[in-house]
């Protein structure tokens, strides 16, 4: 079964990889995937728990801006099995996901979901951790993880760039142990 999600607005195409869809995508994943990974039963909660390799991480520890964001962390997550996703209207088989986490807070628990952005692309809706010091979104799109990208946090509409708060540091690959050099 192929992931089906269309984003007609080019600005939001990458958002098709957003966290919220992951749940649906994995729920609808191929039968082969399901058969081979029945014990995995991958859902968003699983993606948040899978071990990840930190490939980029900011250093700022002081919460800044209206949302009190301090720094970012990007982790590469090996998936238990390859799965098909749709990226920019192309169906691709991927075996990695990327967790993009904004660290800081404590973040307020809101009705509107948090949105994490890399440059002008909404990575996806975020999930807060229990002590409200981190918000994490997941993407399959490796092309988003680019050196020097700006990272933003906002709440609500994934097309609304007006109300975003930019993190103080740009994305710097290789800045963390185990990162890409």
């Amino acid at each position, binding site marked *: 079964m192929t992931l089906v999600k269309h984003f007609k607005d080019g600005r939001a195409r990458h958002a098709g990889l957003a966290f919220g869809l992951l749940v649906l995508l994995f729920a609808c994943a191929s039968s082969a995937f399901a058969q081979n990974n029945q014990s995995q039963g991958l859902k968003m*909660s699983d993606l948040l728990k899978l071990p990840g390799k930190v490939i980029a991480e900011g250093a700022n520890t002081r919460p800044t801006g209206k949302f009190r964001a301090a720094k970012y962390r990007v982790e590469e997550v090996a998936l238990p099995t390859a799965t098909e996703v749709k990226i920019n209207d192309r169906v691709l088989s991927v075996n990695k996901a990327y967790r993009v986490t904004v660290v800081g807070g404590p973040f307020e628990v809101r009705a509107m979901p948090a949105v994490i952005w890399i440059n002008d692309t909404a990575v996806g809706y975020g999930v807060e951790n229990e002590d409200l010091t981190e918000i994490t979104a997941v993407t399959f799109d490796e092309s988003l993880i680019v050196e020097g990208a700006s990272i933003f946090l906002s709440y609500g509409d994934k097309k609304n760039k*007006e109300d975003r708060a930019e993190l103080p540091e740009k994305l710097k690959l290789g800045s963390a142990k185990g990162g890409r050099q």
Partner: protein
Amino acid sequence: MKKILRLQTIASLAFLLFLTALGAQQAAAQTPDPGTTGPYAVTREEYNYGNLAFTPSNFPSAVELIASVHHPTDMTNGPFPLIVLLHGRHATCYKGTQVSLRWPCLSAQQPIPSYQGYDYLASTLASNGYIVVSISANGISAYDAQVTDLGMQARAELIQRHLNQWNTFNTVGAAPFGTKFVGKVDMTRIGTMGHSRGGEGVVKHYLYNASLGSPYTIRAVFALAPVDFNRPVINNVALAVMLPYCDGDVSDNQGVHFYDDARYTAPGDSGGKNTVLVMGANHNFYNTVWTPGLFPAGASDDWASTTDPHCGTVSGNKRLTSAQQRGTGLAYISAFMRVYVGRETAFLPILTGEAPPPASAQTTNLYVSYHAPDTAATRRDINRLLNATNLSTNTLGGATSAAGLTPQDLCGGESPQPAQCLPSTQSTSRQPHTVPSARSSARGLSQLRTGWGAANTSYSNDLPVGARDVSGFSALQFRVSVNFADSRNPPNIAQNFTVVLTDGTGATSSVRVSDYSGVLYYPPGTTGSVPKVVLNMARLPLSAFAGVNLTDIRSVQFKFDQNLQGALLITDLAFSTAPTTIQ
């Protein structure tokens, strides 16, 4: 002679205004206040079946089955209607002033009792003869970010689980209440109110209950400052949406979609619909547990920009106090539930806009819109303004014309209309009717985008044969907003125009909108999500149109003759009247 005639005209107009004002005063005087304490002494209790007593389907965690109950202490007059309240997403646990988002809480923490934050409403309703249950949903708040629909199905199932419990209380009884409620709950008269994510939760619940064959009869659904992520649409049930203008959380007021989406989707729709836009209100103050000073942890004023002249805290701001804000909730939720669940029709004028806000609302700075049930007796749509055809031919089949207006197009609705009505430089959070939803690609409200910059400009709708007798209706109404993004509207100055009815003899009668409605205000605020365009109802009583034959009205004309220039967004032009009975 001309002078005498002019004086007579002025005198007549003054007398007419006096009579109309008198009428409004009489409506106000005759309409009781739904937010006052009633005759019943009230008992408050709780039930708690455990923090992990219920597992919603496809949800990452079990959740609690906990609720408060307010009911008349003396229940001999039962059965009483049942009102169910559901809070929204908030931190779930606290210790001191620190909060967290987990469920259940750690042993050193206490749960944040968000469900207790509406006790002010529950106690008042109970004193008037209602059983009011407020459900705890912390477990859903803790995990709903991990499911695609952001917890709406889980909320619907949780409400249904509580209703099942109340069915048990009502039939055979159960702990902790024993047989106290047996035969005392009217399970055929139920209303639901949800705040924030709970707002979409109660809408979703209506559909879920229907999918189960409607084991419980939901009469009224009230969404308070709601999200609308998935765009569920409900019909044939009373629906209300309260929109805080200074909402700093659901800052785009996207919940207005519930009303917009439901208007014309079900022919013969029996449900009356309302929006109430509350100026100066934020998201959190409707819940006392979320209000600073009333609970020690996790409470905040969600409106963050202190410098905004309307929503901020600078001198001269128009913010409501938390008590005033709760007043608006108390007044309108009570009115809505008492009309549609309790069939206390005396409060209906508050919902139709015929009567002003009751004293319990503690402010008059709010705007009520009303969409009457879709029956021949209660509503005649002149122009729904849904598609390009409606620019030349209205919903009744009559001709529509514009003179000197530019633009004169439709926006916000289905393609090929532009998705937004304001320029792309304006944030979508300032355009509630068209803001995208998180989990839906549904388009927004189709609106007539119009403006003028010269004399003798007008917009007219002709009434065809068979639609000209409007004498059975009480008002002409439409929804409208001043388009603040159009520079023809001078900042901070209200607009105005004249509505003209013409009858079969050619006689005309004119009414200035500002004489009956304040909806042509210039949207206030300068930061973040304000100013914003919210289309509110202008309700012009037909009694104000003296000198025309209401059994033979040939056209409704908007004459833009009060200001040299301006720009508006308009929809839902209709004749309307309230139903005489409530099912």
